[in-house]
């Protein structure tokens, strides 16, 4: 990580501490904001958050690894999550997966070389009546067809 990147990340974390405080219960909201901006929480960010909250960095790491939507490894700028749980599975989610894999030229769990997309499976999104469903970042898309799923991908990045 470059020095100026570190400085700007440190400033960003200071602002988050101002916003949420430095109690332990502020940990998740802080991590969520870092995740949503950078799509992952780097070692340096983990250490900075730990320092402010007066806990060990490993505590922060253990929390990140527990939650499916927090990552300690870099991901693409847009995270596409396709529901694999039973109701979406029965609505032929595999056809959506294949279409997206073909379109982006990567397999599930991978990131495109231009770093635009990471695609992965997720457990039940709570959209079982409108399956197959997927999330792109914080948005959700329902009643997908292979064609509409790919269209949404392009719309999100503009």
């Amino acid at each position, binding site marked *: 990580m470059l020095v100026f990147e570190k400085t700007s990340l440190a400033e960003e974390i200071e602002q988050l501490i101002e916003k949420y405080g430095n109690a332990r219960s502020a940990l998740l909201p802080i991590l969520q904001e870092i995740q949503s901006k950078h799509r992952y929480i780097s070692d340096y960010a983990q250490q900075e958050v730990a320092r402010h909250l007066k806990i060990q960095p490993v505590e922060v790491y253990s929390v990140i690894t527990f939650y499916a939507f927090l990552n300690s490894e870099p991901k693409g700028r847009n995270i596409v999550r396709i529901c694999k749980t039973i109701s979406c*599975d029965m609505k032929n989610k595999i056809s959506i997966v294949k279409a997206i894999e073909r379109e982006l030229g990567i397999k599930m769990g991978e990131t495109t070389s231009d770093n635009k997309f990471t695609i992965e499976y997720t457990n039940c999104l709570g959209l*079982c009546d*409108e399956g197959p469903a997927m999330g792109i970042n914080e948005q959700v898309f329902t009643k997908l067809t292979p064609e509409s799923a790919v269209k949404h991908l392009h719309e999100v990045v503009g």
Partner: protein
Amino acid sequence: MEKRKDRDGKVLFSNYTLGEGVRKALSLSRDDILFEVKDSKLKGRGGAGFPVSTKWMLAAAAIADEKYVICNADEGEPGTFKDRVLLVEYPELVFEGMIIAGYAIGAKNGIVYLRGEYEYIRKSLEDFLVQMRKDNLLGKNILGKEGFDFDIEIFLGSAAYICGEETALIESLEGHRGEARNRPPYPVNTGFNGKPTSVNNVETLGCIPHIIIKGGEWYHDFGTEKSSGTKLFSVSGDCERPDVYEWEWGITINEMLEKVGAKNTKAVQIGGASGICVPKSQFDRKIAYEDIPTGGSIIIFDENRDMLKVLKNFMEFFVEESCGQCTPCRIGNSKLLEGVEMIENEEYTFAYLSKLKDLGKTMQVASKCGLGQSSPNSFLSILENFKDEIFYHEAGVENGK
């Protein structure tokens, strides 16, 4: 997703005017509210079915400088989406239920624990809270009631099924891994930040304003003797009209299938992945605490579905979602999934499968929380109810060759 649909129901989906429930509640004493809820015989709608009045009375009796009301919106059970519909279409019921809970137990703080997957609902909920503050339904001296202050904040989860368990949810709120705590002590005494806390499901809280306005007696007239009231059902799978429905407790599976336009149904999974799978021969059974209890997830399978694949999907879910702190659940679910794969590859022996069934029963008693206690349910019920289909292929490809 469209906003409010035209929905039809006797309690939650009936007409309601914002503020009505809180206004009526504030004209009553705290004890009156607790007794009204007791009369309604309302039980927790998340799935566990604990009597709401008992939870509230314990929290009300606890002595502390601060107390909390937490709305459990970490709806993660496969096939469940009723809380999403309530939060999108009827947020006033849920928030007012929290305010009334706060008044009844003496809490000033309410927290909605919203699952990470529902982040897109957060904005509309927060806008609604702003409006409620303007209307003095939240804030200080609510609706002019001297000394009653209450406010609600929204806390976002980060995708972990286990956080629907109330003590895991509290751990998560406190900034930890969502691992279930030992109980006792129960959250009603030692909850969020060590303070008395009532954790209630979205739907449970949504029923409260109606119960306060129309009375506990009115509410328990719906449903059966042991299961009072109505229930929201999240119906998905093989049917013409998957949706959320409000029906009285005691409805039979057959009646339900007819209402949603399900044809050639082979099996119905009741209670999501942690529930049980009911075969056609038992479709006259009732959905009620005394027969088949459920948090409302109904997944329908028609004749073309392969029940072993369904089971595999469920077991993969539990292997991923087990929090890993207790051995029966962490190892047990992996072993059950392995068993399903053995059946799939025809590498099983019945002797080993019977050991796995014993393991499942051990998990039901030895796991620390509800996840491991209920995750073997689908394994046990699918292997029992669909054994002919899974182990014996009457029309096997090698017949007569």
